[in-house]
């Protein structure tokens, strides 16, 4: 366990090197971006001096690493605000959306996969697999726009954009609005917050749902053929118990891997969904930083996403050990 945590250190350092190098390899002058094209050479040079951009890049890197070790992600060039503080609300927004999307994707995807495998070659199986195929191949932006058109504009069932009704803002503590509104005891707000989550969660969760459904199905089909499933049947257990207890636990390990990977990719790759649903998440925060060559923000954003990815993988590894007694981490 401790060994696994220690492995994180070189991985994180490697990550900073990669992130740092990529960003610096991209052409474009941040000083010019900040000051505008009409700025004089002197003022640009002065700004580079001030930001340390004129130093050799190895030195820039170590300065950055030193600050990072102290929890200082630097300041945004655009807003002059400390990034660690600025990114928090965005991070929370992304986290909230990712969690609901993955809950939806996991619940629907796994059940669809399980029943598909259980009733293999039935019409249910065929329909689910066709839906799953459509799900993985559907462009997210199109799905998002269709949802908005049908459920917001035509039917007026759900709000189309944002996290919350702007006229009645949530009192922020954690920036996770679901939790904030529960803390404040505002159940009406909780309801509104949840309604805002529905459409973006479905848009974002559809691909993971389809992937999870397919993975669950194939994993279940494999397990259903095993001897211990036959034993479970020979004991007189009902098909439901055989499937949901004996088979599912065994089939869930590869599914868990997929869930972990999908969660990781949602954390960073939600720019499209966030844009369509005006969701103030990390994806858009980084996207804006990229457009304005806000190096420190880009670096920090990517670093944080990568860090979360690693943490999720660590959690998945720990869950393996919890499910399968044959896996042990010393």
């Amino acid at each position, binding site marked *: 366990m401790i060994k696994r945590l220690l492995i994180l250190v070189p991985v994180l350092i490697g990550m900073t090197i990669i992130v740092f190098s990529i960003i610096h390899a991209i052409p474009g002058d941040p000083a010019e971006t900040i000051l505008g094209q009409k700025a004089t050479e002197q003022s640009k040079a002065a700004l580079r001096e001030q930001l340390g951009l004129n130093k050799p890049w190895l030195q820039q890197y170590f300065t950055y690493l030193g600050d990072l070790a102290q929890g200082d992600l630097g300041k945004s060039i655009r807003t002059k605000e400390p990034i660690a503080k600025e990114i928090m609300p965005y991070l929370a927004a992304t986290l909230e959306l990712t969690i609901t999307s993955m809950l939806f994707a996991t619940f629907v995807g796994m059940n669809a996969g399980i029943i598909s495998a259980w009733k293999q070659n039935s019409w249910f199986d065929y329909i689910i697999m066709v839906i799953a195929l459509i799900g993985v191949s559907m462009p997210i932006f199109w799905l998002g726009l269709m949802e908005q058109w049908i459920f917001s504009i035509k039917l007026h069932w759900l709000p189309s954009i944002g996290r919350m009704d702007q006229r009645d803002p949530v009192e922020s503590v954690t920036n996770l609005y679901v939790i904030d509104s529960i803390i404040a005891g505002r159940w009406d707000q909780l309801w509104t917050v949840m309604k805002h989550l529905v459409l973006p969660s479905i848009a974002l969760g559809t691909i993971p749902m389809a992937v999870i459904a397919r993975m669950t199905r194939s994993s279940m089909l494999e397990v259903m*053929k*095993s*001897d*211990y499933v*036959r*034993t*479970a*049947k*020979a*004991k*007189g*257990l*009902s*098909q439901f118990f055989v499937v949901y207890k*004996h088979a599912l*636990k*065994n089939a869930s390990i590869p599914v868990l891997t997929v869930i972990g990977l999908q969660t990781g990719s949602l954390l960073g790759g939600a720019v499209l969904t966030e844009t369509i649903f005006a969701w103030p998440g990390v994806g858009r925060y980084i996207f804006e930083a990229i457009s304005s060559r806000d190096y420190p923000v880009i670096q920090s954003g990517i670093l944080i996403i990568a860090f979360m990815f690693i943490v999720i993988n660590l959690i998945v590894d720990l869950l393996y050990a919890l*499910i*399968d*007694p*044959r896996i042990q981490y010393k």
Partner: protein
Amino acid sequence: MGKPILEIKDLRTHFFTDRGEIPAVDGVDLYLNPGEVLGVVGESGCGKSVTSLSVLRLVPSPPGKIVSGSILFKGKDIVPLREWEMRKIRGNSISMIFQEPMTSLNPLFTVGQQITETVRLHRGVSRKEARSITLDMLKKVGIARAESIIDEYPHQLSGGMRQRVMIAMSIACSPEVLIADEPTTALDVTIQAQILELIRRLNEERGMAVMMITHDLGVVAEMCHRVAVMYAGKVVEEGSVHDIFKNPLHPYTQGLIQSVPRMNETRERLYSIPGNVPILSKNMQGCRFAARCPHMMQRCLEALPNLKEQEAGHSSRCWLHETPQEDAV
């Protein structure tokens, strides 16, 4: 003895595959008396495992299906039973142990969880009671450290131990019939003897009838009261262990017995029956064994002989023992 506890009549279990309909079990008749150990012997692919799975209605479906015939358990046909009625029989009145103890236990549940599950399901007892029954069973099958084994996972146990656990699980609800499908094939010889001894003891102490599926004539000689020899989906000879070994009637049985190596004779090579088990199909004609039989006659290719009683309690399916006059009647 009274009425048989289990009686299989003209059972046909076919597999519907891309290559056509395969009659894996093609009209099998068997009976098992209370308290008796019946050996079902034959080569791989002769249909003995499918027969045993059919009894619990556990033949994978699709592609397998019981096409016709009946399986009478205590006089009641269980073939037409609904799935929920069948579940009350499985693991409770008729239970089964399998060939592969390594893979037949669920790797993610403890031994205790797997056994108590059966006990609670069929007996409806409390968690605590189920656990004490489980401990009891584990001790009965000769597991010394039952108190610690009960909380261990299958991968922590040896093959022999796992098979003991399987047996403990199958007898936990005191079934009247135990079907043992090659229970010792995957085990070391010394462990084999222990497991067989255990099954025999359970048979004697509890009066539990055992249907012993095996390809090992040694196991049969050691364990069984009666034997049914199967070949290509059919029973070809059936009788008491004594009769079968002393006076095998069917050429296939004779071949099987001949191919067992003996201590008291020297042979250059082990005897083996020439040829292979035929590929089963629906259009087979004549005796299934004809192609490999040293006594093959024209008649054997044309028509299938019936399973006929030759002497008291000893029947065989062979034209050699049926005179043409009888045939004409």
